[in-house]
């Protein structure tokens, strides 16, 4: 039975259902319970934005607060994953990966290969990504291209309450390390979500809008901007297909290529910085494998090559807009 809940509630529900289903699932992070050792209410915070609120009451010590030591506890989640647990570790903001990246990319991502296929590391690292929160340069990055570059990691970035629940459940059940990117500006988004548990397979992009004139490939918050742009363009008779990648690694290349074969035009939209971005990656894929279908240059709409500014005025112009996306589409369809 589906009902309307928020993106945030859908994450909470996915964690709750997987913890109930599988005793090897444990959840750890900074203040994800909240109030450990403090005199007041236990489970006071449920995470900095309340995403895990209420889970401690149901699942008790399988949720653990941690000291402020990301290398230690993210690494501990990874180590526990090689010992039969299915830890979900919260890295509050993806920006903090700078203090624990080694455990993610030299350890978790490489165990299986370095050990000749003899290790499994079913760990999920949940992290908030993206700008728009007025949180400035160190709390607003996407960094999805950096993680996508690394062999051995899987990278997920959902755009709807329905997808975030199904993809988080799949991530927890998956036997490889998964970086689960939650756009903080989607937490309040409401949408239809079934009560029962379900998993959405990786490497299956969703065509959120069908169209014949131009393909727009994107993910995360930008999916909604792309849909907005497509809506505006349709008034001028420009019919866009919008593809939500949902998982960046592995990526559903077939859906992208088939769409471009049909439309002959491509605009890649990425909230990340431009150099070596997901937008560049998708552009390169198509320029190599669907070149003959292309009727025009491939346009990219990304954040500029700058850190994220604090000023609301500046931050709003930093984040790619529906107008910029529409303009890029016009450049390729004219």
């Amino acid at each position, binding site marked *: 039975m589906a009902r309307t809940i928020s993106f945030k509630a859908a994450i909470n529900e996915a964690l709750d259902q997987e913890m109930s289903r599988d005793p090897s699932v444990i959840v750890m992070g900074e203040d994800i319970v909240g109030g450990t050792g*403090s005199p007041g209410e236990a489970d006071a915070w449920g995470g900095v934005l309340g995403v895990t609120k209420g889970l401690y009451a149901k699942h008790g010590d399988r949720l653990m607060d941690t000291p402020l030591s990301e290398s230690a506890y993210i690494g501990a989640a990874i180590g526990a994953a090689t010992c039969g647990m299915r830890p979900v570790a919260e890295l509050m903001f993806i920006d903090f990966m700078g203090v624990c990246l080694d455990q993610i990319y030299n350890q978790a991502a490489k165990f299986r290969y370095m050990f000749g296929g003899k290790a499994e590391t079913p760990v999920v690292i949940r992290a908030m990504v993206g700008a728009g929160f007025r949180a400035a340069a160190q709390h607003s990055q996407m960094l999805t291209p950096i993680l996508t570059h690394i062999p051995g990691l899987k990278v997920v970035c959902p755009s709807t309450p329905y997808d975030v629940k199904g993809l988080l459940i799949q991530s927890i059940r998956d036997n490889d390390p998964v970086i689960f990117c939650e756009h903080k500006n989607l937490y309040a988004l409401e949408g239809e979500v079934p009560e029962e548990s379900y998993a959405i397979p990786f490497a299956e992009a969703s065509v959120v809008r069908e169209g014949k004139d131009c393909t727009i490939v994107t993910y995360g918050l930008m999916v909604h901007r792309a849909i907005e742009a497509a809506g505006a363009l349709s008034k001028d008779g420009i019919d866009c297909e919008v593809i939500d990648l949902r998982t960046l690694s592995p990526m559903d290349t077939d859906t992208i290529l088939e769409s471009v074969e049909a439309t002959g035009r491509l605009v890649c939209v990425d909230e990340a910085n431009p150099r070596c971005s997901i937008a560049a990656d998708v552009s390169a894929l198509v320029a190599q494998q669907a070149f003959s279908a292309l009727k025009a240059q491939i346009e990219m709409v990304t954040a500029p090559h700058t850190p994220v500014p604090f*000023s609301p005025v500046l931050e709003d112009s930093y984040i790619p807009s529906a107008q910029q996306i529409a303009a890029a589409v016009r450049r390729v369809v004219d």
Partner: protein
Amino acid sequence: MSDNPFPLSRDELLRAYRTMRTIREFEERLHVEFSRGDIPGFVHLYAGEEATATGIMMNLRPSDRIASTHRGHGHCIAKGVDVNAMMAEIYGKQSGACRGKGGSMHIADLSQGMMGANGILGAGAPLVCGAALAAKFRGDGDVAVNFVGDGASNQGTFLESLNLAAVWNLPAIFVVENNGYAESTSVDWAVACDSYVDRAAGFGMPGMTVDGTDFFAVYEAADEIIRRARDGGGPALLECKMVRFFGHFEGDAQTYRAPGEIDEIRSSRNCLTLFRNQVTEAGVIDGGDLDAIDREVLDLIEMSVVNAKKAPEPTRADLLTDVYVTY
């Protein structure tokens, strides 16, 4: 008036009080402005902790460097960053200390030796090692001070910096601001050692613990370790036990606190009241002079808010500047 039992002159004491009061007023006002919805982003207030920033900074010169935390307003004000520039920055305006690009968590003013608030826990410690190293090469006796919270003191970045500072014998001071909480989590749970003196010993440096709400306790401890560092005696760690009057950040419901805890600390552990009592009871300064400062500070903060609100926003063109020295 009777003669002065304090290690500071009457003028210095007035300056210290003005600094503490300015921080308090700045933070109390931000709390109000934030609740009105006028302030963007995350704001972490220093109210209750003023005696520590002030007690340390009264020992520093402009050329000494400090690296701060996400809770940096107090460090900025005490180190001499302009209050109007700070307020404008917190409002994200072009006239801000960082031209609106940094915000509360990234206020910096290198001209005042303030290397920046920091959104990354523990990140200031290596930077301070570098500032101390530069001072050592200059040989001018400057020091560098790193402020770190109790929670952040568990970051590997901070811990390995203690070892580096000791091995290189740097004029670096590490001030642990222990306000009892890291977000909602208790320091008693999260920091394994019995005392920060032990943790300092684990890195071969002297450690001290003082009441961070007692300006004079902080001042005198800082005086000793900073003097030693200037003389080539190497790094030290100072734990200041303090209290946080507001939530972790604005909007924090603080249900993890004990009932009545906030009222209790506001009345019994108010560093401004303590300072006032100490200097007036000693008969060195009378209350009227402090009241006068209170009024002046009130006006200063009022003006800073008025100016910040009417200051121009950055322009779209500003988005693409200051990425590199060349643009």
